[in-house]
């Protein structure tokens, strides 16, 4: 187990180094840079101004020099300064991370609750009308692109039926305490519905097939034969075993949901890491973009590792080598 963990951690570090080189190269090779953007929008900028600004922002160095400078400061725990916001990237990312985690945790909780419930119900009522409705809804949920669904939800539930706000995270000036908590919940409804959809849909499908497989096993038949009520058979014997693969699946899905947050946050103007990444890439704010991308990569590596570990813990037949 320890050897396995150590090996996976070394792999994780190598992957992160490789990804950081790849991401840095791609960002720098993206046509244009912040000074070119300024020059394009301002007819008064002269070449000497451009040269001075390029020097000021450190854009004169070769790409590998810039990369090693960035690595050196990251190793010292300094993610640099945001060119756009003029603040330390660490502070910026931590502030936004809180908002993203709120969105992410709520979405995972909603997706898990609804997905598992619908999957179990669908499996226990196989080939019923409800099963077909759940199946069709799950496929529709899997097929809908996040950005499109976001805009449709805004039109439906903020414009035609003005029930929820069309974006944002808070009503500015709302009183602290309960009004603020309710206000945040009110703003969470639409982005969470959108972000949770794909997880909800895929977990419903997985849960349905996992449950269908488990209910056919001998131990479930035995539990029934012992005279246990159906509720106990399902909850205690079938559901617990059916959930094992789903738990590892959730760990694998979190990075995907986190990536989906980039689009959801952009559509709903939710001030999280995704929106920050979008703005940073558009504004050529390299330090911020690198920090967010590295965080996403780190989360992917960590959750993949957790999935492997969880799988072993949940299924005693798995041995780490």
């Amino acid at each position: 187990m320890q050897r396995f963990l150590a090996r996976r951690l070394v792999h994780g570090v190598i992957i992160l180094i490789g990804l950081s080189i790849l991401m840095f190269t791609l960002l720098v090779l993206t046509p244009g840079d912040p000074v070119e953007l300024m020059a394009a929008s301002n007819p008064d900028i002269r070449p000497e101004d451009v040269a001075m600004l390029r020097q000021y922002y450190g854009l004169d160095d070769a790409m590998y020099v810039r990369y090693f400078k960035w690595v050196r400061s990251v190793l010292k725990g300094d993610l640099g300064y945001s060119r756009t916001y003029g603040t330390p990237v660490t502070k910026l990312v931590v502030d936004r991370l809180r908002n993203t985690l709120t969105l992410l945790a709520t979405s995972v909780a909603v997706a898990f609750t609804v997905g598992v419930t619908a999957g179990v119900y669908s499996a226990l009522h196989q080939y019923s009308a409800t099963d077909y409705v759940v199946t069709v809804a799950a496929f529709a949920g899997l097929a809908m692109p996040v950005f499109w669904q976001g805009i449709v939800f805004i039109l439906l539930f903020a414009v035609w039926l003005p029930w929820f706000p069309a974006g944002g995270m808070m009503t500015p000036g709302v009183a602290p305490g309960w009004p603020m908590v309710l206000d945040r919940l009110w703003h969470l409804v639409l982005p969470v519905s959108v972000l949770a959809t794909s997880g909800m849909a895929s977990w419903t499908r997985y849960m349905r097939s996992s449950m269908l497989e488990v209910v056919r096993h001998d131990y479930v038949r035995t539990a029934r034969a012992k005279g246990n009520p159906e509720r106990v058979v399902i909850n205690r014997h079938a559901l617990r075993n059916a959930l094992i693969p789903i738990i590892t699946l959730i760990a694998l899905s979190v990075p995907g949901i986190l990536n989906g947050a980039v689009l959801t946050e952009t559509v709903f103007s939710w001030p999280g890491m995704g929106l920050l990444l979008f703005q940073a890439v558009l504004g050529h704010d390299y330090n911020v973009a690198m920090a967010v991308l590295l965080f996403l990569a780190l989360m992917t590596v960590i959750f993949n590792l957790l999935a492997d570990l969880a799988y072993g813990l949940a299924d005693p037949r798995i041995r780490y080598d």
Partner: protein
Amino acid sequence: MTNPKRSLLAMVIVAALAIGVNIPSVMAQQSRDTVVFGMAQEPDCLIMTFCSMAAGMAVVNSVFADMVSYNDKWQLFPTTVMKVPTLKDGDWQLLPGGKMKVTYKFKKGFTWHDGKPVTALDASWTYLMLRNPRSPAVTRFVLRKIENMIVPNAADPYTLVVQWNETYPFANTGHTVYPRHVLEREYLRDPAGLKSHKQARNPVGSGPYKLVEWVPGSHITLEAYDKFPEGVAKIKKQVWRFILDATVLQANVIANQVDATEINNFSIDQMIEIERRNPGVTAHYTPAMIWEHIDVNVENEWLRDKRVRQALAHAINREELSTKLFYGKQPVAHTWLPERHEGFNPNVKKYAHDPGRARALLAEAGFTMGPDGVLRDSRGARFEITIMTTAGHAVREQIQQIIKEQLRAVGIDLRIDNRPASVLFGSITRLRQFPHLVMYAWLMSPTTLGNTFWHSTQVPTPANNWEGQNYPGFRHAETDKLIDQYMTEIDAAKRIALLRKQQEIWAEELPSIPLYFRLHLTTSNKKLTNVSPTGLSGTYINWNSRLWEWKQ
């Protein structure tokens, strides 16, 4: 006995009702003393000489009071100074050797938001700070024309004298002023660090509103400054929300979740949809100085012949573009200066849609029709040209398709090759890498005189280190002479006459094909009074927001 599940359900229903009912009413109450602006950008900072985003300038319009500003009639008016200097009054003097002296008197009573007075000393210090090459100023275009800014009498900190080292026709438009007492310590320590100074995100301003909070990625809240000497703003708060997606911003306007929009990236279609869906919103279509056009590479072997450029103009149906795509709201351009600019010439040569005339001009230029319906030059080469523009810009891409059909009708095969905005403006135009045509817009101001667009010294080349914005490569001796004259002509009437003459020549030579003038599109709630957008970049819808009121 109560069932715990039912109790839980009841609590959930009560909470849902509380969310659904209470919060909209909270918002409705707050909107009476608040105006919520929506923007499709978030500012990068609020010291505008170090930043580049228009969104910052819009917020700054509320937070800082300028020395001199433009109103909705595009006239200058004084804010922190007693008057706009003029030659007639003698506070703008022409000196021997082409130099000038302009004197401003600051009003007493203007204070920074921390209570310290705004004086001429702040203005002269700001000038010195921005002149320092180590400060991260984005441009020093006007500053380089100034020799010094001084406060001549220590006992009178309200008089500012600006000494110009060359004549400049817009020397009375005021200057940037920042609070010396806030910035000087950091400036002396490290001028390059000023962009990271807290003033950049939490400025001590001098305008009718002061900054209360900036929640990154979400909004900025401003509050009326109770010591603003021209009168305290009538609406207590301004909230500037950042909604980056234009469709989502549009939904917010329709749902009345924002009261006004600026820098909204709306299309004409979206504006019409807003008007249709929410009769409580006024859609403002304000004439602006945004000139949409196609630059022609006049160094190309075919396009160097002005008859070919004129044929292109005759072949494109610009009236139809304006009518069909913009419902006639965005007027056809016949020259490069918009109608509301002082130098606009309505009597330039105009190129009506006339495919017959286009074919005749192309025949004169030596083209003959090939068997495939595409013209051939004298050497037998197919007349194929490429047009470039910003990829993903729906309107421009639509126009390209229309133009392609129209040029095909006169025998020109148009190829489309679009690039992202950062590439198009970062290298394609700047380094003149477009082979034939490139479509984009220039954002101009009342002080724009086009010297960087049309003077032959402004053709970017490796020899001049790619300086200038004369991307067509237009070189015309008489135009150069006229530009040199009007750039230093102080007399408005003479300057206008020279500008008009330049446009006559320009319309004959046609280094660019003028398409249309874009409108400045903004929206506001009909219950907000005194809203009057200017259509000028740099002066946004909130330029007079101190006077806005909610109609009862």
